[in-house]
């Protein structure tokens, strides 16, 4: 066991898998020599060589296409897109090729590959460095979409993603790389070292894809969240004195509907929280699922707390960020009746 932040945990996952599996290769912009702009791939090239960890030109389309080709030939590429905001040039490759190969080959041919990408705001990155495009990928059949919320899960989920026989999009909430930011932006940031999930095994372990975690047990209302928002949800529940149950989805596709259902049937109330824009966000899917599965247990309409339907602003970051104030209001509203 070591105390790790999320970057170190992800780096550890890479090392563990590259040691275990010579087919594991890492590619992306600045991932090799430089070790990644967020340092996730630091030291990999030095340790495993330029053939196992190498820099790509600034061409996300190319990075995706190369990774798909490698995976088709039996390698296990872990491709980094430097910011999720840059992923769109590669989107066609992901949607049209990566997501379809399994189907197109009648199940005979899978692409075991991971697309890693830091995502989300709260880092003053504005419209081009803060986006949360997870719903776009959740909507594409044929890929899994994973979003960890702490170092332990980050490593375990990344290893599970690498070992998965099919393509996985792995979004890393960059605001919590170094500490569990909880949305109270005026408070000093606590480092991961003080968080229990920073205790990370040094060796190999997995956190299964498709299995949510109850991040905080409660009886009054269920908050569905993932990534940074898990910490916002827990902190808001504590600040408001609301006995909320916080479900950390960890994987949005496949989503762990059983855990959600069990919780909402218990509490009868549900708030969905995500940073991405509201319309057709993943919260819409969650809200619909809850309605389908738990309708007769619902005491109040499901509330969504999300980013606004605007680009992530350069200024007014905290007005956009769905933090404790908006979540607090939604919790009160859903608890009204």
């Amino acid at each position, binding site marked *: 066991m070591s105390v790790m932040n999320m970057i170190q945990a992800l780096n550890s996952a890479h090392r563990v898998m590259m040691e275990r599996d010579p087919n594991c290769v890492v590619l992306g912009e600045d991932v090799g020599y430089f070790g990644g702009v967020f340092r996730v791939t630091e030291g990999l090239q030095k340790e495993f060589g330029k053939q196992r960890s190498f820099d790509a030109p600034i061409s996300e389309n190319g990075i995706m296409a190369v990774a798909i080709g490698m995976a088709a030939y039996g390698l296990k590429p872990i491709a980094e897109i430097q910011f999720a905001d840059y992923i769109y040039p590669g989107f066609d490759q992901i949607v049209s090729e990566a997501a379809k190969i399994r189907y197109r080959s009648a199940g005979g041919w899978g692409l075991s590959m991971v697309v890693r990408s830091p995502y989300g705001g709260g880092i003053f990155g504005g419209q081009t460095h803060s986006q949360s495009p997870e719903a776009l990928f959740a909507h594409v059949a044929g890929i899994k979409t994973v979003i960890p919320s702490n170092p332990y899960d980050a490593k375990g989920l990344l290893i599970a993603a690498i070992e998965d026989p099919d393509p996985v999009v792995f979004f890393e909430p960059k605001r919590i790389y170094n500490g569990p930011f909880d949305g109270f932006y005026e408070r000093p940031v606590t480092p991961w070292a003080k968080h229990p999930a920073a205790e990370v095994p040094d060796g190999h372990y997995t956190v299964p894809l498709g299995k949510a975690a109850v991040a905080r047990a409660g009886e009054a209302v269920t908050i569905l969240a993932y990534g940074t928002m898990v910490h916002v949800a827990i902190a808001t529940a504590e600040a408001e004195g609301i006995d909320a149950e916080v479900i950390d989805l960890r994987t949005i596709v496949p989503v762990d509907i059983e855990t959600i259902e069990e919780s909402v049937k218990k509490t*009868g109330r549900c708030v969905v929280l995500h940073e991405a824009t509201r319309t057709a966000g993943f919260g819409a899917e969650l809200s619909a699922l809850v309605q389908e599965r738990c*309708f*007769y*247990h*619902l*005491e*109040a309409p499901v509330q969504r707390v999300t980013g606004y339907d605007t680009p992530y602003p350069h200024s007014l970051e905290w007005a956009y960020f769905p933090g404790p104030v908006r979540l607090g209001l939604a919790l009160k509203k859903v608890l009204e*009746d």
Partner: protein
Amino acid sequence: MARYEFKLPDIGEGIAEAEIVAWHVAVGDEVKEDQQLADMMTDKATVEMESPVAGRVVEVAGEVGDQIAIGSVLVVFETEAGAGASAPTLQQEGTETTADGERTDTVALGDGLVAPTPAQEQAIPSAKEEQPSPPARPEPVESAVPSTPPPSGGEEQQAQAKAQVLASPAVRQRARDLGIDLASVKTTADRVRHSDLDAYLLYNGGSVPRPGAATRQDEVVKVVGLRRKIAENMQEAKRRIPHFTLVEEFDVTALEQTRAMMNSDRGGNPKLTMLPFLITAMCRVLPEFPQLNTRYDDDENVLYRSGAVHMGVATQTPNGLMVPVIRNAQSRSIWELAREVVRLAEGARTGKAAREELSGSTITLSSLGPMGGITSTPVINRPEVAIIAVNKVEEKPVVIEGELEIRKRMNLSLSCDHRVVDGWDAANFLQAMKKVIESPLKLLSM
């Protein structure tokens, strides 16, 4: 102008009619919507009736003190609404209510359903009543649109109306499980909440079916073996024997002291219960009351009075009641009786009792110890003619020579076969028992 008949609504399930206790309007009055019309009293509560419409009162159903059937017309109005239209005409009073008070009009299910689900059909008896026409969904009175001519004959649906009831899905589900029509639940908010359902349940007491499934499954149990034997014996005893039961209270303060004393020094003997003392008391007294210590062959009309006391001791076993017999109880000491009671009870419970240990009693004693209740009506163990049930010992305030004292008291309930035992015999027997039970020295020295 249209005629609007306001029928006395179902103001509480299981209520067939209500009494008019006050009129707040008279014929000729102009009333506004929601204006108070009358106070109606049921055996549960007095309910204020408010006008569902604005209009002029043209007819009222009766005077203060009259009973009005649920569903029959209480007030007839002339309203502006629906002018020029044939407002629904209504049949005569009372015809909507069946003899047992069940409403025969369609129950609005209140949560948007127009037909009852199977569960509701079970839960709401009145929802089962067949309607010739599609059940109308309630709609606002104000919009009571002049309808086509009323459905021919039968009970027509008043196109009467109510705003749609708002409630969360969870509240709806609970109401559905409870068989409650949400439309009948009052709320001060804009929607029906759990607290409103709680209040409704409170007001209606137990008249609303409990939620959820039965807490136990239905079972079919064959009456066989010992149970069948018990059933036959009990049935025959009750069929043939005209029982009467006499209950007398005994002061057992002294007896309890004696018992405690003997128990504190009992050595290897089993702990004494009340039974050995009572058996001894009966054995001492019964020689003077041979008519009680008797087996009665009622086919031959012969009484077999027994010289010895063969005491039946009613014993609960896993399979049911058994009555092992202490032979010649009169010749056994208190300690011997205690041992015998324990031995026989054990034998009966484990099925090891011999046949002769389970038959031949001449009188029976039945005791449930501290669970013996305050009185009982024991069933005679045929062909005997008497049985005593022991009721619990309890501390009670008693007046003794003008002074209030706390004493240990116990009832004995004696059932006798009135064909051959008179009340006089029973009373005298109990008085004789009283003498020995209340004087333990006498009991133990006789």
